[in-house]
C-alpha cells in the first residue's frame, strides 16, 4: 500500500482503516506476521496507549491503536457540573499544558456569554499560556529524546521546566493542573515580582535551548534516527486533520494564533516556524523554534502588561444564553477546540472537546507503515500525545 497518494482521501481512508489481524498479507517462505502488543504498559507509549503492531520481522506492516484506558468521561462530567465547577476538569485532559486547556475553555464560555476578559487578564493569560507551551515542549523534547535513546536531555529539560513550574506555583499555587484562569478573566492578581521572575526565566532559558540543540540538532545518530522517519505530506496531514507542530512541520503555515487570533495574540509579533519534509526531524526543529517564538511573545507581553482589573463583568453564576459555540485555540499539541451547547442553565447541555492529541494520533498508522519498531517509538514521541487528552 502506498502511503502517500497525495491528497487522495479514498486512499487515505483505506490506509487508516484497521488491521485485519487474521489474514496474513503475503506469506513468504512459510513465514507469518508477528503481532505484538505495544502497551498499554510500555515505557515508550507515553502513558496507557496500546498499539497493536503487525510486523514482518522488524518491519511494521500496520498498526492499530487501542485507546480509552484513561477514559474518564470528561464530556459527561461537564454535563453534570456547572460551568465554573467544570473549569478545573479541563486541566486534567492535557495535563502537560493545563493552562492552554483552561484558556480554551474560559474563552469558549466567555464567547458564549459574549463577554471579554479585560486587557490585563489577557496579558497574564498569554504569558502563562506561552510559558506553558514552552513547558509542554520541554516535556516533549525530554521524553522524545529518551524514546530515541538519548537519556540526558530529559534531565536538562526537566531542570528548566522546573523554573516555569515555579512561576506557576507562585502565581496560582499549583504546578501542573494549574486552574489558572476563570471565566471572565483571572482569579489572581500577579504576585509581586512576577514580571521579574518571567524576565529572569527568559534570560535563563535562552542559552538552555542552545544547549538542547547542541546535544541533538547536529548529532549524527539523532539525524539518522529522525530524518525521513514518519514522513507525512501536507495533503495527508490536512486530510487527517492533523494540527499543531505536526502540520506545520509538513510545510503548512497555519497557526490559530495567527489565522484566527484569540486572546490578544494579534498584538504580538512572532513567526510561525514551518518545516519542509514533514519528518520527525522537522517536527523537532519546529518545536524548538516554537519555544523561541514563545519566548518572544512572552518578552513582548511581560513588558506591556497594562494596569486595570483582571476580572471581566461576569455574574457570579455563569449562565450563558441558549446557543452553541465552537471555540478553538492553538494548544501546544494542535487545535484544541471546545464545542459547547448551552440550554440557558448553569450547566453545559453538551460540551465537546476537540482534542488535538486524539486526532493527531490517528495519523500514526500511515506515518509508521513500512518503518521499523524503533521508528514507531520515535513517531509516537514526535506526535506528542498526552493520553489524558486522547482518552479524556
Amino acid at each position, binding site marked *: 500500500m502506498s502511503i502517500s497518494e497525495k491528497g487522495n482521501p479514498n486512499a487515505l481512508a483505506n490506509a487508516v482503516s484497521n488491521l485485519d489481524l487474521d489474514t496474513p498479507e503475503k506469506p513468504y517462505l512459510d513465514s507469518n506476521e508477528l503481532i505484538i502488543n505495544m502497551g498499554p504498559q510500555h515505557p515508550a507509549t507515553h502513558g496507557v496507549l496500546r498499539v497493536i503492531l503487525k510486523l514482518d520481522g*522488524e518491519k511494521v506492516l500496520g498498526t492499530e491503536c487501542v485507546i480509552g484506558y484513561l477514559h474518564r468521561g470528561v464530556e459527561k462530567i461537564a454535563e453534570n457540573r456547572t460551568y465554573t465547577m467544570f473549569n478545573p476538569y479541563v486541566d486534567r485532559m492535557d495535563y502537560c499544558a493545563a493552562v492552554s486547556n483552561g484558556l480554551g475553555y474560559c474563552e469558549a464560555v466567555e464567547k458564549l456569554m459574549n463577554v471579554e476578559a479585560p486587557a490585563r487578564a489577557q496579558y497574564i493569560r498569554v504569558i502563562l499560556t506561552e510559558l506553558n507551551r514552552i513547558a509542554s515542549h520541554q516535556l516533549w523534547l525530554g521524553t522524545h*529524546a529518551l524514546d530515541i535513546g538519548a537519556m*540526558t536531555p530529559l*534531565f536538562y529539560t526537566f531542570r528548566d521546566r522546573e523554573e516555569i513550574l515555579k512561576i506557576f506555583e507562585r502565581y496560582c499555587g499549583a504546578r501542573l493542573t494549574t486552574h489558572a484562569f476563570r471565566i471572565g478573566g483571572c482569579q489572581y492578581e500577579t504576585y509581586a515580582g512576577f514580571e521579574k521572575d518571567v524576565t529572569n526565566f527568559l534570560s535563563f532559558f535562552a542559552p538552555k535551548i542552545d544547549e538542547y540543540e547542541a546535544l541533538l540538532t547536529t548529532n549524527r*545518530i*539523532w539525524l539518522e534516527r529522525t530524518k525521513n522517519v514518519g514522513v507525512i505530506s501536507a495533503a495527508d496531514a490536512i486530510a487527517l486533520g492533523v494540527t499543531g507542530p505536526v502540520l506545520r512541520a509538513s510545510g503548512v503555515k497555519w497557526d490559530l494564533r495567527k489565522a484566527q487570533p484569540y486572546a490578544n495574540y494579534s498584538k504580538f509579533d512572532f513567526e510561525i516556524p514551518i518545516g519542509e519534509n514533514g519528518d520527525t526531524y522537522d517536527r523537532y526543529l519546529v518545536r524548538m523554534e516554537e519555544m523561541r517564538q514563545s519566548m518572544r511573545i512572552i518578552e513582548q507581553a511581560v513588558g506591556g502588561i497594562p494596569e486595570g482589573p483582571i476580572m471581566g463583568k461576569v455574574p457570579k453564576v455563569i449562565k450563558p444564553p441558549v446557543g452553541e459555540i465552537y471555540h478553538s485555540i492553538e494548544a501546544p499539541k494542535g487545535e484544541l477546540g471546545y464545542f459547547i451547547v448551552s440550554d440557558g442553565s448553569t450547566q453545559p447541555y453538551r460540551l465537546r472537546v476537540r482534542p488535538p492529541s486524539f486526532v493527531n494520533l490517528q495519523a500514526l498508522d500511515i506515518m509508521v507503515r513500512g518503518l521499523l519498531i*524503533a521508528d514507531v517509538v520515535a513517531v509516537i514521541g514526535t506526535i506528542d500525545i498526552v493520553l489524558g487528552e486522547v482518552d479524556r
Partner: protein
Amino acid sequence: MPNFVMSYLGSTVTPGQAGNQFWALMYVLIIFAGVSVAVMAMNWLERKALAHFQIRLGPMRVGPHGLLQPFADALKLMLKEDIIPTEADQFVFWVAPLIGLLASFTVYTVIPFGPSQAVSDMNIGILFMLGVSSLAVLGIVVAGWASNSHYPLIGALRSSAQMVSYEVAMGLAVVSAVLMTSMNASGTGTLSMIGIVQAQQQQGIWFIFKFFPLGFIAFAIFAIAMVAETNRAPFDMAEAESELTAGYHTEYSGLRWSLFMLAEYAAMIAVSSIAVTLWLGGWMRPFPNLLQAPAWEFIFSLFPGLTFAGLAAIAFIGTARMPAQSFFRVQRIGLAVFAALLGFIALLLLVIAVAGRTADTSVAARFREGIDYVYWFVLKVAVFMYLFIWYRATWPRYRFDQLMRIGWKVMLPIALGVLMLTAIVGVIVS
C-alpha cells in the same frame, strides 16, 4: 607448604605454562573475585557518573554517597522471587544466563595483567578470546527464545544479528594488530596475548600509534565494535528499553537477571582488556623504553600508591564537606572509614614500591612489579569503562538497520582496507 605457596612467585611465566595448578587456581579465583568487585564498582560508578552527566546526584542514601548501593542491589536481587514464566522452556530458561556468564568469564583466562600475571598464556590466545566471547551471544539468543515472549525474541534476534555482524569487523581489526606483531627481525608474529604485548615492547611502540593512522583506525574499529558486541549504548538494541521494554531479559528477574548484568559488565571489562592488550600496550607503563633509568622506574612505581592516596584525599574531603548534622553522623563515619581504608592501601602500596625499588628477584620486588603491571593495565581499562558510561550519557540509540549498515557497509570495508594496507606497509618497511 610455604614453599609450595611461594613456588610460583619467582617464576617469569604464567602458572598455566609453569604447570603450577595451585597458582592457576589461585589466579582464577583472584580474577573471578576481582572482576566481580570491579563489576560492582562499575555499577556504582556508572550510576554516579551517569547521574552527574545528567545533573542529578545518583545513589546517595545507602552508605556515604551511595557507596554501599551495589551491595544493597545485589542483596535485593538475590532475595527476590525467582520467576520462571509458565510458558517458558524451563531448562533452557534456567541455563541461558549461565551460558553468558561462563562465556564472559572464560575470556579472562587469557587476559594478561602482566608478563606472568595471567592464568595461562595460550599460543592461540586471541583466537580463544574471539571464539569464547562469541559464545556469549548464545546465552542471549537462548534466553530470548526460552522466554517464549515476543519482546525477548525480537531482542534476541537483534542481538544475534548484531553480534555476528560486528564480530567480523572486530576480527579483521584484531588481525591487523596481530599482523603488526610480525614486524620484527625474525618476521614471525604471535597470537598469544602476552606475546602481543611483548611485541609492542620490543618494537617500542603501542600498536595504536604504529603505522599511524593505520593502527589507530584499526583500534577505532575495534573500539566501536566492542560497544556493539557488548550491547551497550548507542548500540543497545537488544535491550532498548524504550522499544523492547528490556529486550532479551524482559522475563528474567532476581538472581537470574543479575547474572545477565554480571555477564554484560564482565564482558565489557573483558573486551576493554583486549583492546588495551592489543593496542595500548597492555600492562606496560608509559614510555618503558624511553625512560628506562631505575629512577624513572621508581617514580612510575609510586603511581599506584599515589592514586590511592588521591582517592583517599577525595574521600577525606567528602567527609569534611558533609553537613555537620547529627543526621549524617553514620554516613560521615562510614566515609571516614572508607577514606582511611584507601589511605591504608595507599600506604601499603608506597611501602611496597619503596621496598621493592631494586630490580631483583626478591619477593618485594616481584610484588612491586606485579602491582605496577596490574595498575597500569587496570588504569587503561578504566578509561574504557568511563567511555562506556560517557557514550551512554551522550548519544541516542541507533536503529537496527542503521546499525547493520554501519557494520557491514562502513566498518567491514574499512577494516579490510586497514588490514591490507598494514600488510603492504609492513612488507615495505621490513
